[in-house]
């Protein structure tokens, strides 16, 4: 049985449907992520799991038991808030002790558990500090410790890394993965940052307008997005209008107007004549000098329109003869080299026949 089961949950605010008939089941020990743009319903869903809000219809079951009548203080589910929500009038130790006190643990047990929790988040010497005396990253760790100290069945994390700067964020991501692994607590993480979701999760549910667009493992979400929304929301992707010419079990043949035939991996349910887009990630596209020979089937000429240098890699935007543009990514492996091509350069782009994906309209 799944640890948490969300069954056909709907939540409306007036005319606005925040969560629209969503069903998810989350297994014990999982690091599960709800990913989506702001307003997609992920926060509403999280608040219903926590017990701050109730579904208009549908059920939320924990260990198979409907939680509709269980107020949030009775649910073995704790939350790490985006703002950390540390109690400003209590010391770090008292903050961490709070859930233990509420659970009626003895003071000896509280003391040792708090010490343990402080050690776990490497804040052993900060027990007597007040939250306002801590840095953002330290507050974050106190919030994790407080959420985990009473071993909840489920820990909900509401964009907990949103307020941190990029470097600290990466450190905390690694820390989070380790914490989850060590404690064995099931995490439900919500974020709008796709790279964070990919890095942390066992499974991701991509949400949009109250619906789940795709629920899968990170690599499948990235590699095999189910529709245009998912493809566009997760990572970078180029999309070129195409029509299906041939649908074989081994591959698809697509016709791109003004460009020619493109071979793409086969996909279930695609029929000859379907229109849609051929989507391909920048790192799958090879960019080379105009005249260079290639063995790749999908091979087109184009012109560099512009490029984006971000240090480790440079993304080139190449205009194809039919006016569409495609992005190609090239690592800057040669030191001190920002670019291999200039804007306006004639180039060739190519990709493997099993790269890219056809997405129906």
């Amino acid at each position, binding site marked *: 049985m799944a640890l948490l089961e969300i069954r056909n949950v709907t939540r409306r605010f007036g005319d606005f449907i925040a969560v629209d008939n969503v069903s998810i089941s989350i297994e014990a020990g999982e690091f599960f992520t709800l990913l989506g743009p702001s307003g997609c319903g992920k926060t509403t869903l999280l608040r219903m799991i926590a017990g701050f809000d109730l579904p208009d219809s549908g059920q939320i079951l924990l260990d198979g038991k409907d939680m509709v009548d269980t107020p949030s203080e009775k649910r073995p589910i704790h939350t790490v808030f985006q703002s950390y*929500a540390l109690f400003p*009038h209590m010391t770090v130790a008292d903050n961490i002790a709070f859930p233990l006190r509420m659970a009626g643990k003895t003071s000896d047990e509280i003391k040792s558990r708090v010490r343990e929790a402080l050690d776990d988040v490497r804040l052993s010497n900060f027990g007597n500090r007040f939250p306002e005396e801590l840095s953002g990253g330290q507050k974050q760790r106190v919030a994790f410790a407080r959420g985990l100290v009473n071993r909840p069945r489920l820990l909900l994390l509401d964009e907990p890394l949103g307020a941190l700067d990029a470097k600290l964020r990466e450190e905390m991501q690694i820390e989070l993965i380790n914490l989850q692994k060590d404690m064995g607590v099931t995490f439900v993480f919500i974020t709008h940052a796709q790279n964070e979701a990919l890095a942390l999760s066992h499974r991701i549910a991509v949400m949009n307008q109250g619906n789940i667009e795709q629920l899968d493992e990170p690599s499948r979400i990235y590699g095999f997005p189910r529709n245009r929304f998912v493809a566009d929301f997760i990572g970078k992707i180029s999309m070129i209008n195409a029509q299906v010419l041939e649908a074989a079990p081994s591959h698809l043949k697509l016709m791109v107007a003004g460009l020619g035939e493109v071979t793409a991996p086969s996909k279930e349910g695609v029929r000859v004549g379907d229109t849609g887009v051929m989507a391909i990630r920048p790192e799958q596209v090879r960019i080379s000098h105009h005249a260079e020979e290639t063995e790749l089937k999908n091979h087109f000429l184009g012109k560099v329109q512009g490029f984006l240098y971000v240090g480790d890699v440079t993304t080139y935007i190449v205009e194809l003869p039919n006016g569409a543009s495609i992005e190609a990514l090239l690592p800057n492996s040669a030191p001190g080299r920002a670019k291999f091509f200039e804007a306006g350069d004639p180039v060739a782009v190519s990709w493997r026949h099993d790269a890219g994906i056809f997405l129906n309209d």
Partner: protein
Amino acid sequence: MRRSNIWLWFAAALVYAFLYIPLVIVVVYSFNDSKLNAEWVGFTLSWYKALFNNHEMLTAARNSLIIAVSASFCATILGTMAGLAIHRYKLKFLPVLVFTPVAMPEILLGVALLLFFLQVLNLTLGMISIIIAHTTFCIGFVAIIVRARLQGMDESVFEAARDLGASPWQTFRLITLPLIMPAVVAGALMSFTLSIDDFVITFFTKGVGEPILPIQIYTMIKVAVTPEVNAISTLLMLLTLTMIIIASKLDSSVLRRGTK
């Protein structure tokens, strides 16, 4: 110094002089060794001595203190509840109901309360009626201060408390109350100072018999402005000022930092 600066300082000095010279005069003349408030003769504490031998004045002071303490006590509890309710339930009419007495002309409130006590409640006017009246107009002030405190706070700490296993009552006792405590204390002090020197509403709602400080002072002035009035005014000023200073300290420094 720049010209505009000088003028600015000058204007400021003028405003403060206008505000504070009358008060300074009252204080200075309370130590004047003369029956007249006309010229400085010499330093004396005799007016204070006279004040403490004035039985009626002492009774008035005692009555006023009883009223101020009781009214601010009731107003603090009710006003805190009102502030919490206004903040939580976001009802449009609730703030209007609670804050209106603050803006209402005192004379109107006085008349209204008088009629209410006599004709609706059939109450004999006295200490109780004054306490109720003072509580009425103080509630709004407490509610305003408490709500302001709540508005500046991160809402999620209350949810966090519930989330971590605290019942609604535990959340109030362990989180909400400690966090709004500075505002509650500030509201209580504010109520006290408003109550102890209130004249208009007290005048309307007092009975015959027990003297009340502001009314007593007024009665004394009707005869002549004696330095004894200066002395009691100075003492009252000192008390009020102390309260205000404590309240403002709570409001600015402690309010921002939490209740540490």
